[in-house]
């Protein structure tokens, strides 16, 4: 099955790839079949669904902005510094990626919940509680998406040819100026890829949100939570919401077009 002039791929790998693709595509075919397309727009215009959509967009976008502000310095330092403690920091930063989201949410609860060791102080000194608020949902979403952004930046920063930054310094630009005028523009595509991945991940976050921020219809019931509720009370709506999230995520991925981690 090798085309003329294409690199020869063993037919065994073609077979494996085919099976895997089926495995991944079949659930979406199932979902698509069950989606009541004629009622699609009607269902997503229902008040509480619209509220969830808005909430999801707000939470995902806010979380992504925070990921950018927090993730950029961390990713950069991880890529460039030889300081000793960093290996540990790196492992911890990637933890939310492999940790079951509910576990992440639980950890957040113990740290930032009303009785959490930091949350307690937040509550008594500043009167701020995070659980059951949109801010809490944003924290949960940020927690799980941050590793994606950090990883994207770290990869790009470590692959950046040092000659450009050195030239910039040599020509008289201070390290700060070099960072903003030379380094950052050169990792632009990695930044965009990181933003897109974080946004998509934040949009789909469920376990940490429901555990830490709880299910509050006005303030924390994002699309995944709305779907969870709908599964038991309104299966038709659940299917539509599922399809809606597939459509949104698919658009993000198509827009990325394979530029996953900043390599072109």
């Amino acid at each position, binding site marked *: 099955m090798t085309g003329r002039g294409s690199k020869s791929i063993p037919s065994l790998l073609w077979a494996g790839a085919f099976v895997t693709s089926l495995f991944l595509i079949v659930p979406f075919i199932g979902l698509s079949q069950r989606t009541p397309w004629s009622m699609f727009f009607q269902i997503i215009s229902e008040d509480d669904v619209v509220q969830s959509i808005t909430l999801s967009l707000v939470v995902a976008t806010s979380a992504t902005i925070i990921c950018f502000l927090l993730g950029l310095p961390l990713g950069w330092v991880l890529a460039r510094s030889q300081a000793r403690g960093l290996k540990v920091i790196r492992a911890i930063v990637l933890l939310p990626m492999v940790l079951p989201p509910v576990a992440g949410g639980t950890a957040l609860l113990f740290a930032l919940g009303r009785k959490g060791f930091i949350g307690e102080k937040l509550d008594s000194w500043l009167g701020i509680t995070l659980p059951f608020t949109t801010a809490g949902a944003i924290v949960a979403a940020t927690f799980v998406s941050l590793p994606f952004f950090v990883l994207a930046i770290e990869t790009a920063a470590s692959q950046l040819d040092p*000659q*450009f930054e*050195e*030239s*910039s*310094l*040599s*020509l*008289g*630009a*201070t*390290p700060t*100026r*070099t960072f903003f*005028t*030379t380094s950052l*523009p*050169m990792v*632009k595509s990695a930044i965009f890829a990181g933003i897109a991945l974080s946004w998509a991940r934040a949009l789909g976050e469920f376990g940490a949100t429901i555990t830490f921020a709880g299910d509050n219809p006005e303030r924390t019931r994002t699309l995944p939570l709305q779907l969870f509720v709908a599964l038991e009370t309104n299966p038709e709506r659940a299917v539509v919401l599922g399809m809606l999230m597939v459509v949104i995520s698919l658009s993000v991925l198509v827009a990325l077009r394979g530029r996953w981690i900043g390599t072109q």
Partner: protein
Amino acid sequence: MNTVQLLGSTNLEEKSFEFSLNTNSNKSISIIGPNGAGKSTLLRVIGGHQPLETGTLKVNGALVDSPNEKIFIPPHKRHVVLQHQNGGVFPHLSVQDNIAFPFRSRKCSKRKARLHISGILEEFNLQAIQTRFPHSLSGGQRARVALARSVASNPDFLLLDEPCASLDVEATVEIHQHLRRLKTTLFIATHNPVETMKLTNYIIAIEQGKIVQQGNLKELTSKPATPWISKFLDLNLVSGKATGYSVELNSGERLHLPRKHFGPVQVSFPSSAIAIHTEQPTGSPRNRWEATVSSLDTDGDLVRIGLNGSFFSRATITDTSFKELGIELGTHCWASIKATELMVLPSMDPDKK
């Protein structure tokens, strides 16, 4: 007076380097040596991208690097520009923004910067491509942009790491033209002996992380400290105007070329290619000229002979042949070389050497 005084050592990836140099007031210095010897490292030390572990570095009398005294002036504060091998031209900026970069780094407004660079754009023939981006330029064009940008920064020293390594012959010649015009003091790390001989008057030779010899061309060619140096500088270089199969040298002498060339050219040939005769030679070599022996240096089994004729050249013959010839200082003799041994390169304008 632009000087560099360096006496120190540094380590890079488990290789150690020890440098001891004083450039006095030479204006163009080449750094030669085999691959991995430490040419780039030396440039990086001077540029501030590689700190010293021990010792001191003084640029124009000012101490810029001294680990003992905890002094280290970072690269952006030194008036020294290090130009990397591929130029380091920023891919995300247009040609004019690349060249304006040093001005913008000094907080010049965009408008002012553009004014400053118009002269440089003209100087380096870049007006036609000033809005283009590096990925759409040829290697030679990019090299010009890199050089223009470095010059725009107006440094005391310009450190060039093999500036013509990846360029074709024409682009190389063009860059050499620009380099020769520059008034800035140049340090050029190079693996091209022609570049060394044409552009610089002071040479620093590095092997295995240490400076093994430094001096002017004459010193290094007559008394090379290592076999590598002697092999590297073993090149005779003359210029002239070619008209087909023959070239008229600046001295008036005519040489026959292996292929047709036209216009100003550079002719080079190794010292081993010259044959010495005590009488006017016959035979196939079409290039013959008269000369007097001006210097004799023994180097193991070989003898290096300086020949003063209508143009100066160096010949290397075996000790045995030398003894058989029976020549000595001041002896009048004939030199010959086959046309096929001549290497010919175009040059932009006749070089006045």
